[in-house]
């Protein structure tokens, strides 16, 4: 505890002063500042922030409790989180977790007696191609990723690392070097597409080009991007905002992380073009707290772009200005839901809002807002430069262009691959990823919220419509591969754990259903009579009656497994 005159309190007040006058939406950055400096956010800090930002103490406490990377009491000075989601599970995450705990003399969820280390189990860290993965937070220093886990390096305080396996059939987003660091502005070149938009195109013409390309959102919902932009452009009320959803947290998804880490300027140029098109002067990039490297590289790229006059006031003398702010999430999958993400930026618990109204008219701060996924925005410069027809040379009429897929699990070369839509899943697994390791048993398409395919289904073409036709989904492009050594019940157990951990708890079907579903999935090997019908009823109720997409898909993988392998679910 800190008393009224302690040096800590003085430091706290100085720290809080940085956020004075900024209002409630400064809460998340302020909480991060305290969390990083002190390792937790205690009552004194909450009191100071409450006064500085004029937010009730109870509300701040509620926000701390919502995010898994914030602590309201002291934890270890180093917090080690080990991912136990499916792809890491296959790669020995449980063993790594226990070895780590044994070496430190603690248990998962525990802190060593000297207060040095806390070890926790966590859900997907977006490093699935280098499984098993860990995220380490050090008091005073922030976060680092280790993939694959290197216990000695973690305990020795050495920096973490991971390097992407990247492949590209179409060489649009992922062409050229480098792949192991961020492309600099000099390497990326002058924001040509932005310059063209600003000097030659009216905002409506920019939108028309995007519409002509047939581009749909790459975050999972597949909504037509041009339409979203034109709704927002026309929506009454000012200001308008652009938000980039970089909160990629779907288990098995890591394509946005790769783009952020190696092609930050592509994203920034796409973001600026979008802002020009919809009449926004303020943009936010909301990035998950588990992506420290991507965050750092993005910040550097923004500084470079500002210095070169591609962002900031009066861009290239056009009279158009754009301010870009990066906001860090703090461990909550639900903040990838667009309205929950707005709430998070606004300094509240990340609860999804009821829709309608939709973000195009009532988004961030209640204003017209375009929210687009990282990969979606990265497609924009190419389309402006080369046109909608160029983009349509790939894909089908309904699924145009290119897509990044993130492949993890039992393939020779897990990684991110750029494909023209319409290639088969078999081509991805065999030609790009070098084949399945062992005998293929199942593919989970679209992440934990997706559906399972059987080996005889992998000739399906990867398009939105082909996958829908077989009751599956492309989702955000996550592809998890399981060979015949895997107990699918174990995979389902990890999926159940994920949704139980990440349900926000706002609506009853999902708040209660994810808990009960997990309990039944935990005991799949020794079920109670009636469990199959229980799972079916929970699944139907969550799917049809939940408030947001998380609950509406929390049973998708389970229900698909029940169709594909009924023998796993005794009545």
């Amino acid at each position, binding site marked *: 505890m800190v008393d009224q005159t302690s040096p800590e309190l003085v430091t706290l007040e100085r720290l809080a002063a940085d956020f004075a006058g900024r209002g409630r939406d400064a809460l998340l950055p302020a909480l991060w500042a305290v969390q990083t400096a002190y390792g937790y956010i205690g009552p004194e800090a909450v009191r100071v922030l409450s006064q500085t930002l004029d937010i009730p103490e*109870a*509300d701040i*406490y509620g926000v701390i*409790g*919502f995010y898994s990377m914030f602590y309201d009491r002291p934890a270890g000075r180093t917090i080690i989180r080990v991912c136990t989601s499916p792809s890491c599970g296959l790669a020995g995450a449980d063993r790594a977790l226990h070895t780590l705990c044994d070496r430190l003399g603690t248990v998962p969820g525990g802190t060593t007696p000297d207060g040095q280390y806390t070890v926790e189990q966590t859900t997907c860290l977006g490093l699935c191609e280098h499984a098993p993965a860990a995220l380490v937070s050090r008091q005073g220093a922030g976060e680092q990723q280790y993939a694959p886990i290197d216990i000695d390096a973690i305990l020795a305080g050495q920096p973490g690392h991971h390097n992407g396996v990247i492949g590209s059939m179409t060489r649009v987003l992922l062409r050229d070097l480098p792949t192991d660091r961020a492309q600099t502005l000099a390497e990326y070149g002058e924001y040509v597409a932005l310059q063209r938009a600003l000097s030659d195109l009216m905002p409506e013409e920019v939108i028309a080009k995007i519409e002509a390309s047939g581009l749909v959102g790459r975050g999972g919902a597949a909504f037509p991007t041009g339409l979203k932009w034109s709704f927002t452009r026309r929506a009454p009320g000012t200001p308008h905002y652009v938000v980039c959803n970089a909160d990629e947290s779907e288990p098995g998804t890591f394509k946005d992380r790769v783009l952020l880490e190696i092609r930050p300027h592509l994203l920034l140029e796409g973001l600026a073009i979008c802002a020009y098109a919809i009449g926004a002067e303020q943009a936010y990039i909301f990035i998950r707290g588990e992506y420290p490297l991507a965050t750092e590289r993005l910040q550097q790229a923004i500084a470079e772009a500002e210095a070169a006059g591609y962002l900031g006031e009066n861009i290239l003398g056009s009279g158009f200005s754009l301010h870009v702010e990066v906001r860090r999430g703090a461990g909550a999958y639900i903040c990838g839901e667009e309205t929950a993400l707005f709430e998070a930026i606004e300094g509240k618990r990340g609860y999804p809002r009821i829709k309608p109204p939709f973000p195009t008219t009532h988004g961030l701060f209640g204003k017209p807002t375009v929210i687009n996924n990282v990969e979606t925005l990265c497609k924009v410069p190419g389309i402006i430069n080369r046109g909608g027809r160029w983009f349509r040379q790939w894909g089908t009429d309904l699924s145009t262009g290119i897509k990044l897929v993130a492949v993890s699990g039992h393939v020779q070369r897990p990684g991110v691959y750029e494909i023209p839509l319409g290639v088969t899943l078999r081509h991805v697994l065999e030609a790009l990823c070098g084949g399945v390791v062992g005998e293929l048993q199942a593919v989970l398409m679209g992440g934990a919220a997706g559906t399972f395919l059987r080996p005889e289904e992998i000739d399906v073409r990867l398009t939105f419509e082909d996958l829908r036709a077989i009751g599956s989904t492309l989702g955000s492009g996550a592809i998890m591969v399981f060979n015949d050594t895997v107990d699918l019940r174990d995979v389902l157990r990890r999926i159940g754990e994920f949704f139980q951990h990440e*349900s926000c*708890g706002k609506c009853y079907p*999902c708040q209660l259903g994810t808990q009960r579903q997990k309990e039944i999935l935990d005991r799949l090997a020794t079920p109670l009579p009636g469990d199959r019908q229980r799972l079916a009823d929970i699944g139907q*109720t969550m799917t049809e*009656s939940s408030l947001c997409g998380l609950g509406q898909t929390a049973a998708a993988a389970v229900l698909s497994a029940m169709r594909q392998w009924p023998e796993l679910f005794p009545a």
Partner: protein
Amino acid sequence: MAEPASTVTLTIDGQSVTVPANTTILEAARSIGVDIPTICAHDATTPRGLCRLCVVDINRGRLLQPACIVPCQDGMVVETANERVRTSRRTILEMLHSAVDLSQAPAIQRYMAEYGADPQRFPEGRRREHPVLDDNAFYIRDYNKCVMCWRCMQVCAEDAQYIFALSIDARGFSSHITTAFDIPMPESTCVFCGQCVGVCPTNALKPKIEWGLEQGLSPDQIRETSRGMRRRQKPIRVE
């Protein structure tokens, strides 16, 4: 642009009904005697669509919709109690019953019977367990009975008092109503207006006197313990 129509006509369970635009489906249904069950909705609080007990089937859509929120539209075909709707309601009630002590929530008990919800449907399910909090002179908080309808928090905040003594900690099944850092009510900003107690549908919040009598205390004993607590109470903060 044409003036928006001031009334809309829709079908609810086969009956045609005309209501003013912006009427919710719940209100429209009630106006023709069709009963839709609700837990979280309350006249004094902003609807948040939490419990989903009021879900109905609109035009056989992919998703069921909360009747307490969705406004009526011309030509809608609403089914308030078909098989899909009943499965959701029954399952929600069964899951709720397996997690929370509903013994003093008679309305929810009635719904359980009406929807054929089996109180034992989820054996071995984790329950929400909290110690009963008896920390002030006016009411007790027994969150074992709390269904997370948010009403107490809403009336304490923008829906009535602007006191902001209450919030929610944690997430998902573990989320629960509490004060900042779980401090006792008297140390919070609470002004003991009693609004929260008045809107609680499950008796999770209960006047001290009522609770004391249930515990077998005499009115004198209850007054005595309350007096002690009142003395410890901090003065109301004036901003």
